């Protein structure tokens, strides 16, 4: 019954039709919220007592690393769906999401490095948080390289899914690295379960920026998956009809 339900709602055709309709909402909401969040954070949020204005990098850095991890988690769920229920849409979504994950992880690493120069006096440190995030970036590149190295796409999908599932162990490591090891990177300032150690005047623009970046990345994912699905399903009748 679960298998029938999953297969019914995971056809590439239904996905393309649905996401084409949702795209305008995500792109408009995403860009509007990013403009609001970043304007608020960069121009109106107060200066930090210790870090001065360099902390304003937080409004890009923190949302980037949050989505670097969330995209991988999403890929891991898709990988399980592909391996257990043979859902081919799930494999298409992994292949479409991996470059976006690599891109946003790079932005997270890059913004963190630049932030480190005035704050820590160094742009790089081999501490647990930064190193595990670099491993995440390498995982994204590895997944893309593995898929590209096979001419048999079904086999490539399967092996890519296995690698994604193996690599998911890195996500809790990134999350907990600042608690388990002594790191230069500060512990989390925001907590979903407990109280956040960040002032609301900085927290609200950060949340708006994070939601805005999330919507923007979803809209990028819609475009990326659309081109990949159409190219993989190009011999199907529904693709010819739509194009």
């Amino acid at each position: 019954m679960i298998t029938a339900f999953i297969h019914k709602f995971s056809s590439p055709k239904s996905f393309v039709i649905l996401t084409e309709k949702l795209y305008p909402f995500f792109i408009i909401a995403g860009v509007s919220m990013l403009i609001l969040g970043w304007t608020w954070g960069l121009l109106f949020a107060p200066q930090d007592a210790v870090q001065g204005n360099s902390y304003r990098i937080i409004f890009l850095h923190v949302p980037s690393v949050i989505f670097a991890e969330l995209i991988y988690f999403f890929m891991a769920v898709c990988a399980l769906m592909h391996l257990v229920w043979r859902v081919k849409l799930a494999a298409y979504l992994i292949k479409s999401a991996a470059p976006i994950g690599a891109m946003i992880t790079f932005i997270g690493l890059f913004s963190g490095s630049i932030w480190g120069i005035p704050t820590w006096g160094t742009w790089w440190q081999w501490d647990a948080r930064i190193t595990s995030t670099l491993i995440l970036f390498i995982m994204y590149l590895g997944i893309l390289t593995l898929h590209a190295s096979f001419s048999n796409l079904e086999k490539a999908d399967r092996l890519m899914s296995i690698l994604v599932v193996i690599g998911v162990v890195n996500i809790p490591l990134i999350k907990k690295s600042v608690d388990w090891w002594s790191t230069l990177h500060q512990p989390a300032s925001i907590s979903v379960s407990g109280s956040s150690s960040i002032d609301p005047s900085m927290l609200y623009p950060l949340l708006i920026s994070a939601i805005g970046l999330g919507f923007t990345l979803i809209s990028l994912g819609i475009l990326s998956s659309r081109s990949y699905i159409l190219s993989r399903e190009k011999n199907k009748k529904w693709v010819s009809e739509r194009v």
Partner: protein
Amino acid sequence: MFNSTFNNFNEILDMGGHGIYVWSVYLIGISIIAISFLIAKKRIKEVHKKIKLKNASS
């Protein structure tokens, strides 16, 4: 909450000496995201073109 921290445009650019770090991060970050959108849109156009050519030839 909505009073600007800065008094003029130069202060916004300088950000107390941290402007070079803050603005370079946003400039490069936004550029990377924008380029990703352009690449994704270009790929859709290319795929559409290929499928149209295939349909025309068959």
